[in-house]
């Protein structure tokens, strides 16, 4: 998922879709950058329709430590640029996961704290396994990495019986 494209590949793609020369787009992007910078300096935010909003956030002065010398320093207050994608972008990016819902975790009664013997009939466990297998296959089809569904706390393992079915509506 950490794929990256180069700037010129990106420009070529835009050139294809918008039917403009790459030279023009290069100057366009340069100008866009300048104006975004200007907008951030002047208004503290820049909105790009259909994409998102870039804005400045003021970070308070805080104490820090120089990792090299261990010396205590004060990090002065400064602006940070943050990007908030608009809803359509957020949804499109999250599409592979959009079918997954927040789930309630139940305490698994068959397991005792410290990983005791699970007293579960063989039949149920094989059924469970197959449903997990289905989930896994579905995940693979959608290009989603396998999801870790076991969490543990001091009182013993918390088990999620099943992730909500991943349905591809599109």
């Amino acid at each position, binding site marked *: 998922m950490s794929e990256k494209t180069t700037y010129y590949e990106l420009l070529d793609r835009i050139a294809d879709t918008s039917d403009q020369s790459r030279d023009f787009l290069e100057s366009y992007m340069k100008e866009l950058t300048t104006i975004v910078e200007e907008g951030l300096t002047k208004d503290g935010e820049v909105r790009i329709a259909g994409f998102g909003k870039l804005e400045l956030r003021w970070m308070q002065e805080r104490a820090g430590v120089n990792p090299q010398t261990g010396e205590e320093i004060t990090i002065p207050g400064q602006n940070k640029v943050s*990007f908030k994608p608009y809803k359509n972008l957020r949804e499109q990016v999250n599409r592979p996961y959009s079918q997954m819902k927040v789930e309630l975790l139940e305490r698994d009664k068959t397991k005792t704290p410290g990983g005791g013997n699970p007293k579960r009939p063989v039949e149920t466990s094989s059924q469970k396994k197959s449903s997990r297998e289905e989930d896994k296959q579905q995940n693979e089809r959608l290009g989603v990495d396998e999801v870790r569904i076991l969490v543990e706390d001091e009182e013993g393992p918390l088990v999620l019986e099943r992730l909500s079915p991943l349905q591809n509506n599109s």
Partner: protein
Amino acid sequence: MTNKDLIDRLAESLDVTKTDVQNVLKGVVSEFTNHLEDGVGFSIPDLGTFKTRIKEVQKIYNPHYKKYMLVPPKRVVEFSPGKTLKEAVKFTENDHE
């Protein structure tokens, strides 16, 4: 700065009509979106890098239901500003809220 201001300023400095600027911007935005949708990141010189990240599953405690809940993974867009932009806006006086 609204999208309209952005287009006005771009049209002015590039010496093209606003309609053209707008159409190109639409193309640019749709290509950005396409890339991010496929999980492909990209950098724009001096502006910064856009990429996607997968937020892991997390266990949360819901005090209302007194239950633990599992929040599913999520893919989100991340932006990290380029050095030039970062430095340029670092100490500008703004409404610090």
